[in-house]
């Protein structure tokens, strides 16, 4: 009996939970979607995107024609157009998420506080997590409607070729993760700040920091630590001790690990994980025919890995058979196992999945912290500490 009652209770609770989440999300969306505003916004956005694509198409085509007129060879013009359009659309969508995801969530909690409606919600049995997630989902739904309304337009790249469906899936997966992370971060700022204005300023400051700040910071760090490197083919270090059992350990074989004497110090890659520009460049680089394109050079600069063209396999400018050396720099062997490991290490998806995962982690942490802050009596840790400090500060005043 007890167990059945318990199960029923769980069912009712989860039912109430989802009910609460959908109640909040539906209420928010109803407000956002009412009237002509939503319709006009989507239409305007898709129209601008279409114009943008036409512009990219014209520019790429023009440069190809000019290249042909100069006597250069222009193989795969159509594929190049497709790739350029894909890169442009993905970048534009990333920018839209960068600007809109925080815009839709920075008011989520602080506006309720300002309009004094948060108390009305807080006295209902709605779980705080349902309130926070309901707000986040409704904000994201609106952003994602904009992003996904561009899918039919993006599909035009298939007419030109050069971009595979899984490239587009990668692009949208990343944009989705970025929207969740940034949206949740905006929500957190909204829960921390007393005023929506402050939350908005904080959010856009953060957007600036992650896009430009991390990039500049990374370059600065690199300039500080960089030592002159000698140009030589990438050589692999194999830990000879590990080879005692005769099994090649993949983890120990990294193409960018040079012998200790010549290894260039580089800032940690993690510094750039939240940088959406590098991640988008990584996705775009996967479609590129040349590893020396702008997108690929950004990625290889950031990660130190050689990036290969993903869309069309082209030879990479590294020795086909890498030289394997032990710690002393003595050539050990060059076996096929190692060279295959080398190839997988240089292929795509080296960076953006980390970035997407980092954003999802940021999103989850932000949601949990927001719940702490929105819950009645809930406080952020720093504020608690200050509060504890104040009674300690009072007695000395009281004694004289």
């Amino acid at each position, binding site marked *: 009996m007890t167990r059945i009652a318990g199960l029923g209770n769980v069912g009712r609770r989860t039912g109430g939970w989802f009910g609460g989440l959908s109640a909040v999300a539906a209420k928010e969306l109803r407000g956002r979607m009412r009237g002509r505003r939503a319709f006009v916004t989507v239409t305007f956005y898709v129209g601008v995107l279409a114009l943008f694509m036409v512009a990219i198409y014209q520019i790429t085509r023009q440069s190809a024609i000019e290249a042909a007129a100069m006597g250069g060879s222009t193989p795969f013009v159509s594929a190049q157009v497709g790739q350029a359009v894909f890169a442009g659309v993905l970048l534009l969508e990333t920018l839209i998420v960068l600007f809109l995801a925080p815009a839709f969530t920075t008011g989520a909690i602080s506006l309720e506080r300002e309009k004094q409606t948060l108390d009305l919600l807080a*006295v209902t049995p709605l779980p705080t997590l349902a309130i926070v997630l309901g707000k986040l989902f409704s904000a994201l739904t609106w952003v994602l409607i904009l992003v996904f309304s561009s899918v039919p337009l993006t599909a035009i790249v298939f007419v030109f070729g050069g971009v595979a469906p899984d490239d587009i899936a990668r692009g949208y997966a990343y944009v989705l993760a970025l929207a969740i992370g940034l949206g949740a971060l905006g929500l957190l700022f909204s829960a921390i700040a007393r005023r929506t204005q402050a939350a908005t300023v904080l959010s856009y400051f953060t957007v600036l920091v992650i896009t430009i700040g991390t990039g500049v910071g990374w370059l600065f760090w690199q300039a500080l630590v960089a030592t002159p490197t000698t140009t030589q083919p990438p050589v692999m270090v194999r830990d000879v001790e590990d080879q005692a059992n005769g099994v090649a350990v993949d983890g120990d074989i990294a193409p960018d690990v040079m012998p200790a004497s010549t290894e260039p110090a580089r800032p940690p890659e993690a510094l750039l994980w939240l940088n959406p520009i590098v991640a988008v460049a990584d996705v775009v680089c996967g479609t590129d025919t040349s590893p020396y394109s702008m997108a690929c050079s950004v990625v290889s600069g950031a990660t130190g890995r050689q990036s290969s063209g993903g869309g069309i396999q082209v030879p990479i400018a590294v020795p086909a058979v890498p030289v394997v050396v032990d710690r002393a720099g003595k050539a050990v062997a060059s076996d096929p196992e190692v060279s295959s490991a080398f190839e997988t290490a240089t292929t795509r998806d080296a960076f953006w999945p980390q970035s997407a995962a980092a954003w999802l982690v940021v999103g989850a942490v932000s949601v949990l912290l927001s719940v702490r802050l929105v819950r009645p009596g809930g406080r952020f840790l720093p504020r608690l500490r200050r509060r504890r400090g104040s009674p300690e500060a009072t007695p000395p005043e009281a004694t004289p």
Partner: protein
Amino acid sequence: MTAIVRARGLVKRYDGTLALGGLDLEIAEGEIFGLVGPNGAGKTTTLRILATLLEPTAGEAEVAGASILSNPDAVRRVLGFMPDAFGVYDDMKVWEYLDFFGRCYGLPADRRRRMTGDLLELVDLAARRDDYVEALSRGMQQRLCLAHALVHDPTVLLLDEPASGLDPRARVELRELLRELRALGKTILISSHILPELEELCTSLAIIDHGCVLASGTVAEIETRLRAGAVLQLRVLGDEAERAAARARLEAEPAVASATLREDGLLELGFTGDDDAAARLLADAVAAGVRVASFGRAASDLEELFLQVTAPGFTRPEGAGTPDGGQ
């Protein structure tokens, strides 16, 4: 009757300032209980603690047998709360507003539809069903907010200054509405800083100031206490020495607990006797040659008692009161 709301020793401290200093409260089922006090007395803090929006620094409270600390969800289910400063979602229609809160309480769709119609009828907004909330007047929004507190058919209603900002007519309507709700078996806790507003509506009252209950009980009980502990005011003619002599003479009377000479020349007597004793006191004083220009009770109704007990310094040791005083 059993107590449906019970608070014991509620203490709330904000950053060193004491908002509630050990407040006790007991409200029987079916009552309209008035919480009266000047601004800053702790009314809103008390209501917010009972509504589970604030955690008390110390103390415990129960609503319908559920603890606000260990079982806030159960409290929320039996409680309807209308905050003093409330906002409305202005991008919603009137029925959507009620429907939304119905969903928050997990009511099924058919019950929500019925509830929305009934409540709009009750608060007299049925004709405004499809209007936007922002288009309603202040009084209508107030009624809508009251309706929102009723969507889940709570047994206890907490109303924080529900009549503030309402014109006299709307106040009368609100009073009628609250009587109707009481007839439906709801217990109502209502706060106000205006005593007459509650005097005729409430069955019981508590007067609070500086986070403590100064007096509580039914309206009749409080009135009796007032009569028993009256303050008599005399205006005595004559110079300083003559007045001092009159004070000393009157203080010696058995029914006079205290006698103080105020700076403006009024002589105040803490008087414990009844009307007969008062008459005798006056006759004796006149017979003894005290020149009495006026004689009367200082507190003649609840409002004066309220002003009196919430005046700075009253009932508080060391005169620690702040001069923000009575309303």
